[in-house]
């Protein structure tokens, strides 16, 4: 299974549950930027399921003919992550544009990057990020290490790194929502197993895991 970096924790949890419930089945997970995964699938990466952070990436995979019939499995919103103690006292999206505040974002090519661009446009601010990371976990790491004053990540990333980073929620009016989508590859390695896993993701146990991780309803 190839999955967006933002799903690292929740899918690892679900995968362990599946492995416990069905002896003999091992779920191999590979996490990265959704755009990278879409390219890897197009280049013939051996996988069964593709999970992207947003629907734009999934649409590209559908257009390329590498996956079929994607479904929404959850939603996510952007949030500002700051290092413990919030050294630069970031309280709002506008604070990210303040002089002397170093900000990490994702590259514009990946879902969290394009979502951040939309967020800044909505808040009408010009943010000069110091780095554009390859995926959302790269941004989170830079915040965790305290190398930047703030990073634009998903609400679920802040929750996953609770204790190491603090979250500054984005007000309702500026909210940028991305929809996590999953699809089975056109030529999966094991279709039955893939369908089984996808069913589990969308059913009650999967839902519990996604809710616990802070994802919103599909």
């Amino acid at each position, binding site marked *: 299974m190839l999955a967006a970096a933002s799903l690292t924790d929740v899918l690892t949890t679900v995968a362990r549950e599946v492995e416990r419930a069905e002896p003999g089945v091992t779920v191999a997970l590979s996490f990265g930027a959704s755009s990278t995964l879409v390219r890897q699938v197009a280049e013939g990466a051996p996988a069964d399921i593709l999970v992207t952070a947003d629907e734009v990436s999934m649409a590209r995979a559908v257009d390329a003919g590498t996956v079929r019939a994607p479904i929404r499995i959850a939603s996510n919103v952007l949030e500002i992550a700051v290092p413990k103690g919030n050294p630069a006292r970031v309280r709002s999206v506008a604070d990210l544009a303040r002089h002397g505040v170093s900000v990490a974002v994702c590259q514009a090519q990946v879902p969290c990057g394009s979502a951040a661009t939309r967020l800044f446009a909505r808040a009408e601010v010009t943010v000069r990020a*110091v780095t*554009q990371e390859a995926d959302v976990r790269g941004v989170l790491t830079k915040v965790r290490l305290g190398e930047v004053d703030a990073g634009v990540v998903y609400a679920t990333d802040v929750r996953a790194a609770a204790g190491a980073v603090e979250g500054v929620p984005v007000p309702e009016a500026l909210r940028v929502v991305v929809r996590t989508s999953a699809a089975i590859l056109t030529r999966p390695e094991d279709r039955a197993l893939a369908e089984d896993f996808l069913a589990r993701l969308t059913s009650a146990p999967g839902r519990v895991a996604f809710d616990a991780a802070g994802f919103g309803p599909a």
Partner: protein
Amino acid sequence: MSPAGRRRAAGRWSRTSTTATPALLLAPALLAVGLLLLPLVALLVKAPWSAMPRLLREPVVGQALRLSLLTATVSTAISLLLGVPLAWVLARTTSRAVGLLRSLVVLPLVLPPVVGGVALLLAFGRRGLLGAPLHSATGLTLPFSTAGVVLAETFVAMPFLVVTVEGALRSVGTALDEAAATLGASRLRTLRRVTLPVVAPSLLAGAALCWARALGEFGATVTFAGSFPGRTQTVPLAVAIALESDPEAAVALSVVLLVVSVAVLLALRGRWVSLGRVPR
């Protein structure tokens, strides 16, 4: 066996052992050549030649190229300034501790660059061992700056120079230095007028290797310096990003790096391979 027969046998023996390559070796050798060359050939075959001029004129490409040339050159200059003295110390000191020191300073040669990047963050990052006092004293931060790229490239590339120059210094030995000293030359003068000229070919080779390695650096740079166009996004980083959005541009940039690498190898003309066989 008649003498002629012996000669024939000897001739046959020498032909098979020294001139003709046994088929047993030829097949894997050809496979090796294919493995090494096919990807490069593919890069050239698949390169969007007609679109190249347009792609290479894109501002982001020019930015990345300029940044790469600048940082690789500065890294090489720093490596020469610091690495040549280090090579001298390693080559001329007989203490046993030097052996350990040598293994440690060339560690970046075998260390995964990403690990190097993490280590650099922990040392020179805003909360790093040295980075934290530096930041609180001067407000300077190295990560996410062009200086950070230079630091990452120097970390990864300097060992190439050190190893090359140290090998040369070792193999020329100390006889010439001693002769110069006998004739009354000071130690610095000996270094400048005798030792360095003798190892000049290796110095050049080391510098070229160091420069090429710095130019291609990816892992430590992206980890320590992040990726931002014009400031820290060097060509290898731009290639990785372009692969996501504009694969043609990625191939075009890759061809540029390939050409540069080939040029460096041509300039070295085998000097690298003959390391340690410095003229006496």
